[in-house]
């Protein structure tokens, strides 16, 4: 189902429970009664067109209007990406950590194996943190500077200097696949880990890992297929402007 402006926001969640996390990132809280998507977005100062494309792409892997997504401002896009990072670090990762911790506590027969998982995930958390930190400290500020230069009519040499030190091409090349390790972890639990007595926790953990993996997939897709091409286009035009002078 494609979500549109006039659908009730409540129905959006009813049809797909996962949209809750997207709402959360846009700062939309529950309790909106029978208000439509459009009304709820307005009330929360959310760009409704942007929200719709993001939420539709999130629930349907085949729905990805990248050309339309590229028309939104860099500020809007990076804000959303930034909020997604926060969601991982403040909510998802701690949730998974708690689950693993609970598994360690409740398992007597193979504690040492669960401790291995714990260490694996702990290293992963650090890697994810480094990944997002680099984007927040280097990539996003760079893209915002490019957008600013692109939008201002007067040409300022500093942006050319900036483009000599970094470019979106560099980001594209260094942007690594952060989901791979989650897939490994899932495979290890499904195929190789001697099953702990408490399968409830194990199943829950798998479910959470899978969700996080899917979520990061969607997130990276926005970075690589929306942000990168958009900035590359802007870089080209800025370079051209300077060549003319």
């Amino acid at each position, binding site marked *: 189902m494609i979500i549109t402006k006039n659908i009730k926001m409540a129905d959006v969640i009813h049809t797909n429970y996962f949209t809750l996390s997207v709402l959360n990132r846009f700062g939309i809280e529950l309790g909106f009664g029978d208000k439509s998507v459009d009304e709820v977005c307005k009330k929360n100062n959310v760009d409704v067109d942007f929200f719709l494309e993001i939420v539709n792409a999130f629930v349907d892997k085949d729905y990805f209007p990248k050309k339309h997504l590229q028309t939104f401002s860099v500020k809007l896009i990076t804000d959303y990406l930034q909020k997604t990072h926060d969601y991982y670090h403040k909510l998802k990762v701690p949730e998974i950590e708690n689950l693993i911790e609970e598994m360690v506590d409740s398992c007597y027969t193979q504690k040492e194996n669960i401790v291995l998982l714990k260490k*694996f995930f702990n290293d992963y958390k650090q890697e994810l943190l480094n990944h997002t930190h680099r984007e927040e400290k280097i990539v996003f500020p760079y893209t915002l500077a490019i957008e600013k230069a692109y939008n201002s009519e007067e040409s300022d040499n500093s942006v050319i200097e900036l483009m000599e030190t970094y470019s979106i091409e560099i980001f594209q090349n260094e942007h690594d696949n952060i989901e*791979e390790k989650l897939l490994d*972890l899932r495979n*290890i639990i499904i195929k190789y880990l001697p099953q702990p007595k408490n399968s409830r926790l194990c199943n829950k953990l798998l479910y959470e890992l899978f969700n996080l993996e899917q979520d990061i997939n969607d997130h990276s897709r926005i970075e690589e*297929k929306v942000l990168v091409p958009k900035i590359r286009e802007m870089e080209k035009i800025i370079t051209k402007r300077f060549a003319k002078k």
Partner: protein
Amino acid sequence: MYKATFIIIEKSYLIRKGLISIIEKIPNTQVIQQFDNEDDLKTPANFESDFIIINPNLLNANTLNIIKKITPSPALSACSADRSAGRRARKTQVISISEKSTVLTKEFEWTAQIYLDDTQNSILKKLNTLIGNRETKNVKSEVPEEISKREIDILKNIALGYSNKEIADKLFISTHTVVTHRKNITRKLGIKTVPGLTIYAILNKIIDINDTGKSKS
């Protein structure tokens, strides 16, 4: 593990969807990527796929170059490196999707052509023949995927933190061979990363938990 992987490069959403739904009818196949224009084709270092289905209109010097860099996934090319005869890199096979038959340059040939007015059965037949051809060339990949003694040796060293080069020197084999073994290990276990392989090695008592990552001396 998948027997055959596909990349689809085609502008039309309907045609892409149609192809995917047909390909998915064949067991153990997967469409790993789909592109709706040539600009999006970018090649990460080790991009792998067994087949590419492309609309000839999107084929130009640039896309051709990228396609040449794509290598078949290890599932199908697995034993090519074991046998020295098959060592030369196997090429990813390219299939066209178009209204009519098209001819390419002499250096580049279609493996098969799919036409828009083909029936589902004839498309399935074409694809099955291609997948079947590759399989018989690789009889070995049909036997159950036990991890071999040699692979356990390699896995042990990976888990201990040695690099490909170090492992090659230790075991008196070429780095290329180490890489091939690694690919096979990953394919058989479904685990890609070093930390993942390390956990597998510990769980299966290939290494001891106290050995990890420090026994470089």
